């Protein structure tokens, strides 16, 4: 390394001695002029060049611009002396950036040093590439760096530096390097005996694997093995023990890498991993006195907890860990509290049950008042993740309270989160409105426009909410000072719904007008424009204050703002038209309902988190958000791995597939409902539900038909079954070695049709049951997407093995249906497993996908092989979402669509109830189960049903559907008419929705 240079030391001392900035600048200018002169003269020896260059570098580090020395740096890196080379490279990396023109000049010198036999030169060259790393370098030298990394003759230093240099080049220019081809070679280096090499290679693999899960899949096993050797075999050189913790950084890297892959299918690997994680947790029960020791131990522990949560948030390892976390969030050390809250937020964001976290709710709320803003932020994130219907009021209440005193740079995020939680977990409309209004008055400027738009959308779409909202906002406007956002909401809501409260005491039109207009002076032009519109609406609604309003319009015809003036003139003209004219009432008609759409709030929140170098393994928020992200991340991986598994390298994928889900408690199968029934949606009618559920991208609360028994009939008798399914399979098995499972026809059994039919209009129920297996279904649909949970239950005392399931989809262009993960595995006796199917409606389809389940019971020979082939209850009407229409709008559209071919009609026989009446309840259930909204007040005959809905297709677009069901008790007939803008849709929807009611066709 460069030995001391006296001139440099003197120069530094001189500068340090300068008491004022001017003197310092003078000294520097003198020196730079001197150096420039020296460089110009040439004929400097290596030492002098080195010394002057070092001075230039020092000057640059002080923050001065320097314009000399670039060429000398280029010259110096070709020196044969290490000390001179080192300064040359230092100057190069500090003075130039990756796009500098001079970089081109040095590529050849760097290449020479890379090729040199002297490993010290190799290292210097690698430092330069790692620090500069532009595109040209990546193209010119990437291969060379790779070669150095894998070469057997390279020293460990060269290997380490080459690995990280490659990583840098890849991050900047991922396409330049052929990383997929290098996969096996790079992964094999993870087992390098040198822990330094192993660490850097693992870092490289972690980044490469994120973009290429499949090609790097064999790193999983390597990582698990290496961890196992560190933890259980103490296989590490003694100099890599850091304060009694064996190589914490390597452990962390390996644990992190595993989080980028889905949990392993191989039970053995999973057991091994759980053993490792448990051991890490066991080792961390005590907090060592030494701070370094404690930190190192905890750094590994927290990474292990993150991995355990990723593998299975409900495992015993995680529940052991959560006990520790409960202790951590109460710890004296701030760092530990911070990390404890962070890990708990991860747990809450991924776990199926929030109970373990909720136990600590009071502590967490208290953490909002921590002395450290970093801890307060973590507490906020955690509260956001752990919120559900049961604690929403408390959590949101605390957050709103805290908002008033929160740090300024935290407020906007808090407002967003509060708004989302309120929307998502509101059980009463009143609470929602109150909270949001309170939020706006408390946080004012920090409330983004999205929040108040959202309130308007909600109120417009929910009739039940309108009067309450109007009264509430009016109440808020009574305050002497209101935030502008409050005035905007007030303007909009009172303009639309002010008349609903006009008869309440103290809410007369004049009072409403005064409440709003007294604030107008504090408002910006856009708000005034909005208020003008409100006044116009009032001209229509409240003729008694018309004079006041016209007065104001007249005044505004003289304002400077062009937009306001134009409005005022137009509104004035409208308001002054004669009473008999209905132009005004037409214009001021009620606003149409907003189309359902995803909440803008969530995307806003995630946009804030920005881009990171490494992909996040989880995000703050609920389980759903994380599940989806994960599915997105792993989709490519699973897709490719299924067909490739046969010829894949000896990776873990090839091992016998065993379920990744642990056996769950025994049958009875589907739990009653998927989510809590108390969410806003289910307390109200179907329409409100749709709107509320679309709000924040939340789970559609499956409004399971709870009044109906889940099991309609007893299961078919045991004797009937072997002949039907198992029997067929045996016959086919003799047909020349073809897998019988692929040939088996649809399974036939007494109740299959009935179960299936029920599932076309119910969200959950039995798909199939016999003496050995029960298959339950729970489904949720959201516009063109759907998720179906299959519950496969083993009723025998012996395990099912070699279970596999596949979906055959006759119309792949119109419908997409695939399993979420790899649906293969074993089912333990009296246990059940859950598999998830994703469906997407792309276009009109008529055929249902078919589910094929093959498994072996304990019995020997062909008898033990069972094949089930069942149609899935995925039909076009599942992708319909109800809409409400007013009478006029309904008839207008009904007329526009017109008769055949866009109308489809069917008259069919129906069964009456035992008392000889039309079974109205059942008809209602079937129709709303077909996802239509039932519109009241349109058809004068109350036993007729009027239906409206919108079919969502991702490529086929949206199709509006209207319908009418007219039962006739005396004739025992029923007429169903469906009109839609697409004749295929009309026909298919007619077929689907009439079938369960048709006495001739219905299976039940």
């Amino acid at each position, binding site marked *: 390394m460069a030995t001391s240079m006296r001139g440099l030391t003197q120069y530094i001392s001189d500068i340090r001695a300068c008491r004022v900035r001017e003197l310092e600048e003078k000294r520097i200018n003198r020196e730079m002029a001197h150096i420039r002169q020296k460089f110009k003269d040439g004929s400097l020896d290596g030492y002098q060049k080195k010394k002057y260059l070092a001075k230039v570098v020092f000057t640059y580090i002080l923050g001065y611009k320097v314009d000399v020395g670039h060429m000398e740096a280029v010259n110096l890196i070709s020196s044969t002396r290490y000390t001179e080379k080192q300064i040359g490279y230092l100057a190069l990396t500090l003075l130039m950036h990756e796009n500098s023109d001079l970089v081109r000049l040095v590529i050849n010198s760097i290449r020479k040093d890379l090729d040199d036999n002297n490993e010290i030169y190799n290292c210097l060259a690698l430092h330069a590439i790692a620090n500069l790393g532009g595109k040209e370098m990546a193209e010119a030298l990437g291969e060379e760096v790779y070669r150095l990394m894998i070469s057997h003759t390279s020293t460990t230093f060269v290997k380490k530096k080459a690995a990280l240099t490659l990583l840098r080049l890849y991050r900047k220019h991922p396409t330049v390097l052929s990383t997929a081809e290098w996969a096996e070679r790079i992964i094999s280096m993870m087992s390098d005996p040198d*822990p330094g090499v192993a660490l850097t290679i693992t870092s490289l693999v972690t980044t490469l694997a994120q973009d290429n899960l499949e090609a790097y899949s064999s790193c999983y096993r390597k990582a698990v093995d290496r961890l196992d050797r560190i933890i259980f075999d103490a296989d590490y050189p003694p100099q890599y023990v850091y304060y009694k913790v064996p190589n914490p950084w390597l452990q962390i890297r390996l644990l992190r890498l595993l989080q980028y892959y889905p949990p392993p299918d191989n039970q053995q690997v999973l057991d091994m991993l759980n053993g490792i994680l448990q051991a890490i947790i066991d080792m961390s029960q005590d907090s060592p006195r030494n701070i370094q020791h404690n930190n190192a131990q905890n750094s590994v522990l927290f990474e292990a907890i993150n991995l355990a949560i990723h593998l299975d948030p409900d495992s015993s390892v995680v529940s052991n860990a959560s006990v520790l976390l409960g202790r951590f969030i109460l710890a004296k050390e701030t760092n530990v509290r911070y990390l404890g809250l962070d890990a708990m937020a991860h747990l809450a964001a991924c776990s199926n049950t929030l109970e373990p976290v909720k136990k600590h709710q009071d502590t967490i709320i208290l953490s909002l008042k921590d002395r450290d803003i970093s801890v307060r932020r973590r507490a906020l994130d955690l509260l956001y993740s752990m919120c559900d219907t049961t604690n929403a009021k408390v959590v949101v209440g605390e957050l709103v309270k805290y908002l008033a005193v929160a740090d300024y740079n935290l407020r906007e995020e808090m407002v967003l989160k509060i708004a989302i939680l309120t929307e998502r977990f509101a059980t009463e409309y009143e609470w929602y409105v109150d909270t949001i209004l309170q939020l706006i008055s408390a946080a004012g400027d920090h409330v983004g426009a999205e929040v108040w738009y959202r309130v308007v959308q909600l109120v417009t779409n929910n009739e039940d909410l309108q009067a309450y909202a109007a009264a509430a906002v009016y109440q808020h406007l009574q305050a002497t000072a209101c935030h502008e956002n409050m005035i905007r909401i007030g303007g909009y809501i009172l303009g639309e719904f002010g008349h609903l409260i006009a008869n309440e005491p103290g809410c007369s039109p004049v009072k409403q007008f005064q409440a709003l207009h007294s604030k107008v002076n504090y408002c910006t032009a856009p708000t005034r424009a909005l208020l003008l519109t409100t006044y116009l609406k009032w001209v229509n609604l409240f003729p008694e204050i018309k004079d006041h309003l016209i007065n104001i319009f007249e005044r505004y015809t003289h304002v400077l703002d062009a937009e306001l003036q134009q409005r005022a003139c137009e509104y004035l003209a409208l308001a002054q038209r004669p009473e008999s004219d209905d132009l005004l009432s037409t214009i001021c008609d009620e606003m149409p309902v907003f189309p359902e759409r995803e909440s803008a709030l969530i995307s806003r929140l995630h946009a804030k988190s920005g881009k990171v170098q490494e992909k996040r393994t989880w995000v703050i928020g609920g389980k759903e958000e994380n599940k989806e992200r994960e599915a997105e991340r792993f989709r490519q991986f699973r897709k490719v791995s299924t067909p490739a598994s046969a010829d894949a390298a000896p990776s873990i994928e090839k091992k016998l597939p065993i379920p990744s889900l642990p056996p769950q408690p025994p049958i009875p199968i589907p739990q009653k409902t998927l989510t809590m029934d108390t969410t806003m949606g289910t307390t109200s009618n179907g329409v409100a539900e749709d709107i509320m559920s679309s709000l924040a991208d939340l789970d559609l609360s499956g409004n399971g038909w709870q009044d109906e028994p889940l099991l309609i009939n007893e299961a078919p008798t045991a004797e009937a079954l072997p002949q039907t399914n198992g029997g067929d399979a045996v016959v086919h098995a003799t047909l020349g070695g073809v897998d019988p499972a692929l040939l088996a026809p649809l399974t036939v059994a007494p109740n299959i049709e009935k179960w299936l039919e029920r599932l076309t209009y119910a969200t959950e129920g039995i798909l199939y049951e016999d003496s050995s297996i029960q298959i339950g279904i729970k489904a949720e649909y959201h516009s063109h997407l759907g998720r179906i949970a299959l519950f496969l239950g083993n009723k025998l005392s012996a395990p099912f093995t070699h279970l596999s399931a596949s979906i055959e989809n006759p119309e792949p262009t119109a419908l997409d249906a695939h399993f979420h993960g790899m649906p293969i595995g074993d089912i333990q006796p009296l246990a059940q497993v859950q598999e998830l199917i994703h469906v997407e409606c792309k276009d009109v389809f008529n055929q249902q996908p078919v589910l094929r389940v093959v498994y072996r019971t304990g019995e020997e020979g062909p008898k033990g092989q069972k094949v089930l082939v069942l149609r899935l209850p995925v039909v076009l009407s599942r992708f319909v979402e109800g809409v409400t229409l007013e009478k006029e709008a309904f008839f207008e559209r009904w007329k526009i669509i017109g008769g055949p071919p866009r109308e489809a009609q069917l008259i069919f026989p129906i069964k009456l109830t035992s008392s000889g009446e039309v079974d109205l309840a059942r008809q209602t259930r079937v129709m709303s189960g077909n996802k239509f909204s039932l519109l009241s007040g349109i058809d004068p005959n109350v036993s007729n049903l009027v239906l409206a809905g919108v079919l969502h297709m991702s490529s086929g677009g949206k199709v509006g559907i209207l319908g009418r069901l007219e039962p006739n008790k005396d004739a025992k007939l029923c007429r169903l008419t469906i009109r839609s803008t697409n004749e295929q849709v009309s026909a298919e929807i007619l077929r689907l929705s009439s079938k369960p009611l048709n006495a001739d066709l219905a299976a039940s």
Partner: protein
Amino acid sequence: MIKFILVQNRQGKTRLSKWYVPYDDDEKLRLRGEVHRLIAPRDQKYQSNFVEFRNDKIVYRRYAGLFFCVCVDSNDNELAYLEAIHLFVEVLDAFFQNVCELDLVFSFYKVYAILDEVFLAGEIEETSKQVVLDRLDYLEKLE
């Protein structure tokens, strides 16, 4: 990964800066100022060693009058980097035999060389103090 490493004294003078993301000079200047204003007023006793910074976070530790700060991705392991800072400081301490702020000033070119042995390309390169010190000894003897 590490975006940058800054070593600053309590007055905000930067004693070492290493950038693993190509910022331009003005941006670097801004970052130095922002980091100093964020870290320096924080309480040693009651506040953690982590603080959010833009979309990332800064993990820092104070040694006498010097703040060692590393800026890492928001989902990186905080304690791993906190201890990496300590490892680096221990290496400096052993190399300079009781390191002080002036060592960083007068031997800046050596500090950069040491840094390149511990961190490279925004990642931790070597985690054994002994291995790094042996290597530095070896390099020190070269001419």
